[in-house]
């Protein structure tokens, strides 16, 4: 049976007690669409200290091959904690552009 979209599920489609039998599927949940602002990283100011990575409550900030920190916008909720905590003022929250 092809997988139904969330809004097509009926009460009969639910597992007993609404158990989720497929482990780890929370990773499919796009928390990124909650945000109105997203973090912009300024490589001129950033010293790669990693505090943004530590403080990010979503765990969506990782460093790339060169050590620069980037936010995964699929999960980033735009909370701005990284920008507040950055000791170098290297992160600025900017408005999300209309798609």
């Amino acid at each position, binding site marked *: 049976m092809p997988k139904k979209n*969330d*809004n097509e*599920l*009926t*009460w*009969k*489609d*639910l*597992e*007993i*007690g*609404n*158990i*989720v*039998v497929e*482990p780890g599927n*929370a990773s499919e949940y796009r928390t990124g669409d909650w945000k109105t602002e997203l973090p912009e990283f300024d490589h001129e100011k950033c010293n790669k200290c990693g505090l943004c990575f530590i403080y990010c409550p979503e765990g969506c900030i990782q460093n790339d091959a060169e050590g620069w920190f980037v936010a995964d916008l699929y999960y980033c909720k735009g909370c701005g904690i990284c920008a507040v905590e950055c000791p170098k003022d290297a992160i600025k929250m900017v408005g999300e552009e209309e798609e």
Partner: protein
Amino acid sequence: MAQVVGMEVSLAIAEAARLANVDVISAYPITPQTHIVEHLADLVANGELDAQYIPTESEHSALSACLGSSAVGARTFTATAGQGLELMHEVVYVASSMRLPMVMVVANRALSAPLSIWGDHSDAMAVGDTGWIQIFVENGQQAVDNVLCAFRMGEDQRVLLPVMVHVDGFHLTHMVEPITFPELEEVDRFLPPYKHPFPLDPDKPVTMGAFGMPFIYTETKKAQYENLMASKKVILEVWEEFGTRFGRHYHPVEGYRNEDADVLLMIMGSFSETAMETIDRLRAAGRKVGLVRPRLWRPFPFDEVRQMTKDAEVLIVVDRAISLGGSGGPLCALVKQSLYHEDKKPEVVSIIGGLGGRDITIDGFEQIIDRGMEIVQEGSDKSGFEFFGVRE
């Protein structure tokens, strides 16, 4: 051969849990439930019952531990009363909506304030809509039998729901009664091992208790409702099979000399046995009175109540709890709902009595019947209710 022994009903309930070979008991002691869990703790400590006994710091934690134990596929038992059931309240909903079978004996007790350790049905009524299968019993034998039935009902793969067995605090829990205990082998044949289809298991991980977004919450409640209603079929099957195996028969609603009665009395729990004495006395005096005793509280037996009451002229429903500012008597409200669409139905009178440990005697039930008939003749109180025995 089954043995008949004289035993305090609380201890008999604990023995029933032992016969059911429970794996986990988690509880917090509270009057009048204490003897049940004390005896189970003894049985575990003495090596007479191979189970984990988890003492907790509160009832909220006790029932939470039961969730975990049922979720791994362990046969789970707990007991509480009154304030303890209230402290469990949010977890009570979780057990049923997560479809985790377990058996909870409630030694029914009044709710504070004022503080009362004595019996009535306030605690049961406060959890009426939590989605558990709920059974009221009238004596110690019924308590033992229905604890065994409750495991079988709740653990049935078509059901997978927690079950509450309501036992009147003190009036039952602290009585010594003759109890017929089935042999362990007979219970084993009646009660197959519990298996949850998706137990918590590191080798096959699942997520239990995930959150429900607005797009799915309504569907979860519809599924839960349908499941609880469908459990009725299994409840009837289990009582039927229990009757065949053990010779004691149970039904969603039971009667006593009710078949040709013009005036019916209705009450749940142990007070019905006193009411039977009243019925006998009034029948001997030539009055056509009878008694109706709902046993299955949830899912509520609307059809059976309707069938057993619709031909009477007067139906007097005695609630041992009060819905303040609402329906008055919670049982009576459902009885009225059962009869609403009938063309021919009795005049229904709601009486609140037996609160906070106050007895209703044989004479008391006679007064209730007389007063109920008087209310109907006067036409004075069709939508309300009256307190029985309150000092004005």
